[in-house]
């Protein structure tokens, strides 16, 4: 089994997430999901199906209440909060629907933020941020403020921030939800390119045509996960 363990970046088995409301709410029920390294997977489903809860568990922002979750072979349940924060910092690149860029800091400074909680020195930080921006095609916008950029460009900055530390997984929450169709296509092309360089991409979306670009698609319905393609 160790060989296959190394191949899978994410391995959920029997994962459940129960919220302690009264009555208790089961947002995730017995989820089994294995994501191989280098895969591009889309998680689709209607709102309220448990997509966001699954994203939070996958992103180590929340913990499952039952089952096991191995991230890159590490049992997440065994980590304390600070180790979990370290895992987020190094293992996961987040891309959000609303970009989450800091309006008063330049594009390259926004990208450099990715390094802040990694205890890295400043030497080479700007160069690595510049390389990440070149990779998303924004090498000419480094000193701009995000407010001067279009929506597609802002999302590219966010993607550059997410990939700067070479994470194990790029975790995207409705990455094209705020973009028009042309921009959406170009962002999906970018994901395609990053995926071909070996990056594992997990994308949560409710748009089926966006999900269709991924190599694999799974569907959440009422907290349960089913393979859909």
């Amino acid at each position: 089994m160790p060989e296959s363990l190394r191949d899978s970046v994410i391995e959920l088995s029997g994962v459940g997430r129960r919220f302690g409301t009264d009555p208790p709410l089961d947002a995730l029920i017995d989820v089994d999901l294995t994501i191989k390294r280098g895969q591009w997977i889309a998680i689709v489903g209607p709102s309220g199906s448990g997509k966001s809860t699954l994203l939070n568990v996958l992103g180590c922002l929340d913990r499952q209440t039952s089952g096991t979750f191995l991230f890159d072979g590490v049992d997440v349940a065994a980590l304390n909060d600070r180790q979990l924060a370290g895992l987020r910092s190094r293992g996961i690149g987040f891309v959000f629907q609303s970009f989450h860029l800091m309006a008063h800091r330049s594009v390259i400074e926004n990208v450099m933020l990715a390094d802040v909680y990694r205890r890295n020195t400043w030497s080479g930080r700007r160069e690595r941020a510049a390389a990440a921006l070149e990779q998303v095609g924004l090498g000419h916008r480094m000193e701009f403020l995000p407010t001067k950029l279009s929506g597609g460009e802002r999302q590219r900055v966010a993607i550059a921030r997410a990939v700067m530390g070479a994470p194990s997984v790029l975790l995207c929450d409705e990455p094209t939800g705020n973009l028009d169709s042309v921009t959406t296509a170009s962002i999906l092309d970018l994901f395609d390119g990053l995926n071909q360089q070996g990056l594992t991409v997990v994308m949560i979306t409710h748009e089926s045509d966006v999900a269709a670009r991924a190599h694999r698609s799974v569907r959440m319905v009422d907290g349960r996960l089913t393979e859909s393609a």
Partner: protein
Amino acid sequence: MMSFKRGPSDPNPLVAPSGLTAKDLGNEALAGLFARPGRMVLTVFGTVIGIAALVATLGLSLTAGNRILGRFDELAATEIVVSVKPGPNGPIPGALPWDAADRIARLNGVVAAGNLSVVDVKGVLTRTSQVRDPSGQTAFSLTVEAASPGLFQAIRSELRSGRLPDEGHSARGDRVAVLGPGAALRLGIADVTQQPAIAIGDNRYVVIGILNDVARQPDALGAIIIPEGTARNDFALSGPDKVVIETKIGAATLIAQQAPLALRPDDPAVIKVAAPPEPKRVKDNVQGDLDVLFLLLGGVSLLVGAIGIANVTLVSVIERTGEIGLRRAIGASRWHIAQQFLLESAAMGFVGGIVGASLGTLVVISVSFYQTWTPVMEPAIPLIAPLVGAVIGLVSGLYPALRAARLEPVDALRSGT
């Protein structure tokens, strides 16, 4: 091209805790502050006023205390007059030795000392010539004083013309006199170049000098002053009435203790000493009532400033919820979030302390300049003030930082921007 393939030789760094270097922490906090510079300036304002009020109060009370000490320094704090306590049958003649001034002058801390006595002339009048002028007064009843040579320095006399008598005049009993300006005016003598003479009773005296002013013993202004030896010969002066002493600054208390022993080692209790009050006591009295009100005002402003910092930091936490969520997602722990907000509020307090201490110092200097006082300041105060400001900022930031640290990243990320 970047690669996202993890090599087999990579140590697995995933489980290492996230971290935040001091440089990154400082950079993030400063960037957070300067994102809204106008708001930062307004927030700091309360602390500035509070610290400025405290520094100005402490500085001004020190300055005012120094000013009062300074006024005493001028004359009174350096003056001692030694005389004899009256016995049961009135003044005791000859209780002070003839060399009293010399004995006092030998004490360390004495600048000048001189004997001064009022001469009993038995009612004889003083006049300038033998001519009897029926239309005007030619003879006056004037005070005659006997002085040892050191007296003129001890009372800080200024000469208008002529010279002062010396040891020789006194030793030989020369009939010379110095006139106070009032006496000179009444006798009609304005100048000593013609060697004018006056007659006290039947004895004639050469006027060798006219005084312009004296700083002490103003009786001398209207008197005729003759050498002590001359007074012994002509008027049977039995001993000095008093010794006038000028001391160095700060020596008055000591000299006042030593003088009776120096003059009458056999019976020091007979000597009466008039010395200035302890200058320190004067200073303490003045300082007490000045401070309290202003210190209270400064404290209230500081409190208001602290509440302002707390308030604005709290608003900023709420506004930056999305940023906090992002930071948590990219690896910040709760403690990292708290650290950043604490540092931001402490930095505001620190800057407020620096600006406030500078303003307070300027106030002390301006008021001193306007009042022509010498500004006095405890040098530690402007150095401590920024630290006080930083602590106030830190305390103000505690609650907002706690709120920020408690935010759930999931909720924070959903709240937009």
